[in-house]
């Protein structure tokens, strides 16, 4: 039996159809659905800004952080958003290196998700410092205090470098991918202002063979650089925890465990967003096909198993180490005052995604949407469990205490979605949401007449 390749682009498109379809959202007025969602998102964003303003003015005490829970919602949600970003880089860079042709139609939006997720995440540690107007002290610059340099031995400083490098390289990679598509929009523009704006964004790209040759090499290089970078970022985020001597944090499994979790949560967010994009822009269903969604669901299931393995292995090591503090933290994690969050995490991350063993559910849009939401919830709780259950009871019972969850904790968590969704919805209208220049070469994949691509 010969396994035939599935068509990557449905509906017998011509090259011109692709340009027309993908440019349509940029060139037309938004529909009702988009406007309603945008108004919702921007209202949430304004609420978020108000809350953040109040937190900056009043201080971090508004949140539940206090001794012994020095890290709370801001750090939990930071790790959550950074993790979400990782799937975008995985799709756009790692799958590119593995020559996975299906990635072309989802790569742009996944990469956009990365950029916005990193932006959303980046705010949290900056605000968590409590005095965000002094955040420039995080960077080693010549100053009049000595100069007093930053402590390069601190994992928190590694994080500053990792996240800012990740943000910079991701934005470059994303932007370079869009340059030829900006040129397409510019050339199609009938309106002078649009022509000028997209002309400037396209940097004067003309698409000569010599330029394409450099372009492809640059794309390959950036993909090659992003791949170790993305693995390093969540590894370093996990060092923030693992380098501390706190039981529950001080484990060597953290780097791979965090990276697997990041990819897991990121793919869930890609699926959440893609199902919405498919509903909002029905024309994109020919590009982001059900086959694409199925592949991503398989990745969710696999990484969900990896994460489940990490949970089990942590427990095993806690017992096997013979360390009473370590053992206590894990028993307390599952059966202590925060046991409910632990079981939410287990249910959402390891049990619910197993539904994707069945092909019928892997290919069902409502099922995958619901599962992806559960995974998002579960992965937020994973970081909650790691941060809070380890901090709230450490070595000395005299210093135990629960996290004082406040209204502001909930407000920053939900408000951050306002920032992310506003950026994402604007992106869908302003930038080409599927890579035009990357989809065209895979047009013939799986077609009977020219499947030799």
């Amino acid at each position: 039996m010969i396994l035939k390749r599935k068509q990557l682009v449905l509906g017998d498109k011509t090259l011109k159809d692709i340009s027309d379809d993908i440019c349509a959202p940029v060139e037309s007025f938004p529909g009702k659905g988009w406007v309603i969602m945008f108004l919702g998102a921007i209202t949430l964003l304004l609420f978020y800004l108000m809350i953040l303003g109040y937190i900056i003015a009043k201080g971090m005490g508004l949140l539940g952080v206090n001794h012994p829970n020095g890290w709370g919602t801001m750090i939990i949600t930071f790790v959550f958003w950074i993790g979400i970003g990782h799937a975008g880089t995985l799709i756009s860079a790692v799958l590119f290196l593995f020559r996975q042709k299906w990635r072309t139609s989802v790569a742009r939006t996944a990469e956009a998700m990365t950029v916005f997720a990193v932006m959303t995440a980046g705010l949290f540690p900056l605000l968590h410092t409590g005095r965000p107007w002094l955040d420039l002290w995080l960077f080693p610059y010549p100053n009049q205090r000595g100069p007093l340099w930053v402590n390069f031995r601190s994992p928190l400083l590694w994080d500053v470098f990792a996240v800012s490098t990740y943000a910079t390289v991701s934005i470059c990679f994303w932007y370079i991918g869009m340059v030829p598509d900006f040129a397409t929009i510019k050339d199609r523009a009938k309106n002078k202002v649009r022509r000028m704006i997209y002309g400037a964004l396209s940097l004067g790209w003309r698409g000569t063979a010599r330029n394409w040759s450099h372009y492809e090499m640059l794309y390959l290089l950036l993909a090659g650089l992003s791949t170790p970078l993305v693995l390093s970022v969540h590894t370093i985020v996990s060092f923030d925890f693992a380098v501390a001597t706190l039981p529950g944090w001080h484990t060597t499994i953290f780097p791979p465990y965090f990276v697997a979790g990041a990819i897991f949560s990121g793919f869930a967010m890609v699926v959440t967003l893609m199902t919405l994009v498919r509903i909002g822009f029905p024309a994109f269903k020919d590009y982001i096909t059900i086959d694409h969604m199925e592949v991503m669901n398989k990745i969710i299931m696999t990484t969900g198993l990896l994460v489940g393995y990490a949970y089990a292995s942590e427990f095993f090591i806690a017992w096997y180490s013979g360390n009473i503090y370590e053992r206590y933290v894990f028993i307390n994690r599952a059966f202590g005052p925060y046991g409910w969050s632990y079981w939410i995490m287990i249910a959402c991350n390891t049990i619910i995604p197993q539904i994707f063993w069945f092909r019928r559910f892997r290919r069902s849009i409502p099922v995958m949407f619901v599962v992806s939401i559960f995974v998002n919830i579960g992965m937020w709780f994973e970081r909650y469990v790691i941060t809070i259950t380890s901090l709230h009871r450490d070595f000395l019972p005299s210093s135990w205490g629960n996290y004082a969850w406040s209204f502001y904790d909930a407000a920053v968590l939900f408000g951050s979605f306002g920032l992310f969704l506003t950026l994402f919805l604007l992106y869908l209208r302003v930038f080409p949401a599927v890579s035009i220049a990357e989809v065209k070469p895979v047009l013939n994949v799986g077609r009977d007449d020219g499947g030799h691509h």
Partner: protein
Amino acid sequence: MAQNQGGMAAIFLDEQKTVAAAIRCRESGLKKFDAISPYPIHAMEEAIGIKRSPLPYVAFVGGLVGMVVGLAFTIWTSAYDWPINVGGKPFVSLPAFIPIVFELTILFSALSSLSAFAWFCRLPKIDPPMIDPDLSSHKFAIYVPSDDHGYDANKLEQMFKELGAVEVKKVAVY
């Protein structure tokens, strides 16, 4: 490359025909001609005879510089400019500097390849000349500047027509 001077442009609707035309151009001794396409065509580099892009060398050197800068900076600030004893760790705590060095390696490499790319492609360019607006959507073109070896407008026009060009036109500026 030729700038601000005229030449001949042939427009095609088909990828294969454009590649065939590029091969013919090269066989007839033309050297400075170029192809314009809405997406990268892999056979085109060979057809035109474009050399491998030197960007990987730039990326390598950029990464190397980033690594040296990262090492030098962390060691200089932590051990020489203002040594501070942190938890009894050595002043030159190399393993702890590796994440910083690694990130700077990646950052320098990525930014230098990006700058080199802009330099090689002469980007950004304000208001670039355009042969046909559809060349970034669904048409392909071969452009031959008039100062190319053995440029003959009539002969070229004839040749491109035979190769299946839908339009052959003189371009004043490109």
